[in-house]
């Protein structure tokens, strides 16, 4: 055993002493919770390990990621993964302007009262602002912050209207990708490959021995762009 200082905390409703410096996930493992669900990247990126916690003396419950929140004396914490959310079925390729169809796909968006309870994002997304933009038809504006969303669903857990902002965001994100035409540089390259522009060079490479291949690669890499 080590000389690490122990702290007392409440973990999944159980008062328990754990060494200081652990994350919530590590504290769970250390105290015999065989946690597999709700564990993912352990880097604060995947959103699998959402937790709700009350710090000692604090008046307000906070939310975060169990692999990033370090336990402190008097902390009261539970895991909160997999909050139930309604997900719409849709086929983007059958829509001309998916942005304009948002009120049909997610009609609950119009029921958003702007209470801002959803602003608990561990990635600091201003979810309320995003929902406001979506409600008012500024879909491009609403899509912008969604790139930071890792679908943990904490925002949905707070919504009194049972809206799942993370799924609304995902719809908008996918819709946004379909609004642009195929990138010209990609289209050009696809045509070149289709037309066999590189075929002779590939044949040349295929016929080379090991040393020849190294020389070939050196030449290709050094050609001016």
């Amino acid at each position, binding site marked *: 055993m080590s000389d690490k200082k122990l702290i007392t905390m409440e973990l999944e409703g159980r008062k328990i002493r754990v060494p200081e410096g652990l994350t919530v996930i590590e504290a769970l493992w250390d105290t015999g919770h065989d946690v597999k669900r709700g564990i993912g990247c352990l880097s604060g990126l995947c959103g699998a390990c959402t937790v709700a916690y009350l710090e000692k003396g604090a008046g307000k419950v906070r939310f975060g990621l169990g692999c*990033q929140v370090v336990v402190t004396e008097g902390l009261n914490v539970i895991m909160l993964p997999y909050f139930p959310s309604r997900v719409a079925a849709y086929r983007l390729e059958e829509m001309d302007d998916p942005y304009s169809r948002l009120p049909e796909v997610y009609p609950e968006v119009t029921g958003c009262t702007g209470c801002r309870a959803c602003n608990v994002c561990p990635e600091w997304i201003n979810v309320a602002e995003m929902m406001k933009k979506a409600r008012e038809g500024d879909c491009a504006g609403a899509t912008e912050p969604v790139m930071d969303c890792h*679908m943990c669903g904490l925002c949905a857990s707070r919504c009194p209207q049972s809206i799942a902002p993370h799924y609304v965001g995902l719809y908008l994100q996918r819709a946004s990708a379909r609004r642009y035409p195929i990138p010209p540089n990609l289209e050009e390259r696809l045509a070149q490959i289709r037309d066999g522009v590189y075929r002779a060079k590939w044949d040349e490479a295929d016929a080379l021995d090991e040393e020849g291949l190294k020389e070939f690669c050196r030449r290709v*890499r050094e050609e001016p762009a």
Partner: protein
Amino acid sequence: MYPEDLCRLIERVDATRAERLKQDVPRLTEAEQADLLKKYHPDYKDCAFRTLRVGPNKGERTTHEIADLLESFGDLDHSKVPLTPAFDTDVLVLGGGGAGVTAALFAGQTGARVLLATKLRLGNSNTIMALGGMQASVDRADSPLRHFADTLSAGKFAGRQELVRTMVEDAPEVVKWLLDTGVNFDRDSSGNLALKKGGGLSAARILSIGDHTGLNIMKVLKDELRRDDKIEISEFTPAVELTTNERGQCNGAVLFDLGRRRFITVRAKAVVLATGGSGRLHFQGFPTSNNFGATGDAIVLAYRAGARVEGLDSFQYHPTGVMFPDHMVGILVTEAIRSLGAHLVNVRGERFVNELETRDAVAAAIIRECERGGGVTTAGGRTGVWLDIPVLEQIHGAGVLRQRFRALFRQFMRVSINIVRRPLLIYPTLHYQNGGILIDVNGETSVPGLFVAGEAAGGLHGRNRAMGNSLLDIFVFGRRAGVAAALRRGENPGAVGFGHVHDYYERLRALRISSISKSPTLFPDFIVDKL
């Protein structure tokens, strides 16, 4: 927040920044690079490896950690596993990361029945942790040939030519598919795909979505899976053994239901193994950037079934893994930071390597610097060097970090470290399994009916993977494996059995090997090294 002793050392980083900006650190010559790798790269540390005594790669070198798993009896009691399949399907996909999901989507498109089984939640994988981006030669100044040459060179010409060619030629098509599916890659003002440079690449070729590229692709693909009701998903059910028929073809797998603690036998016409890499085996005691589930299960399952592996003595140590604070050790700092010009700085405030060398060389240079006494040691006993990120604000203008590295900025603001003003302490972190189960251009292994895609597969990246090629290869070979596996759906899979395991164990017994291991590992043992 940094403690006082580190803050004092950071003052040296701040004080030397202006001088360093004027400095040009020369690139290594080929001979210098070879010498550096030989002396300092973990792949060349002979005592960490041994020669396999059994199986298709008998006589070849791999890490002790992998050899321990392969040269032992698994703790699964095969007599307790029901041999009557609980599920019959056309294609069984094992793994719910980018490669598995892609294989499932393409197999499903052909009309095949698909069951995708995954150890954790669908999508929980190293794919979502791919920060920097994905390679595809779409720029005018670039070409698939250049991509080919860069990839082979980065891999020290140990990668297989036909696999590399397949990957680079498919790349633009894969990008088109992702765009059509609703992946919003960053664009420039003229609507072209925006491109970044990467270490060791001869052209700008990295596509990205902010600094959350893999995550945003995975979100979309996972969502896309919902639409196909022929694809069934089974979460929290890792595969613990493959099954074969009397002809030695792979025809299913045994899954372990983590909740019910029961075995489920699945029979299939073909199996796609896409369970990722092995960072959580912590080779040589290195920290890892990998997901909780990356325990090398695919190697164990496939090797016992008789599949050849290749290059399992080569791993990628990403140069910039976090060393402080303690609870973030091993987490990756994206290579894009170095691509843009951030400096690696020793305890004296000096640069010691050109930051745009390939990952293996930069990692070796950091290890050398720390062994030579140029490192910074934390109270937690870890040693690293500084990654001077604030310098980017001077090169590219104030605000660039908050704008282009939003995720990284937040990640460290949570622990009160402001990357706009503070460098990060870093050291190489175990990042990628360069080798794996040998595949052909359709992802099939030397075992008929067994396909492999993604990090589990080998033969492609040689001895060092270039940045952005793993995010690409999971889609290229996930697609090919999914389609090729689905083409087997007219075949008779035969009865499921463990003949291959009995044969394999017979050979272990003949060698007087009696050790038992938990193999596949499934989950890393929890060791809190802070205790």
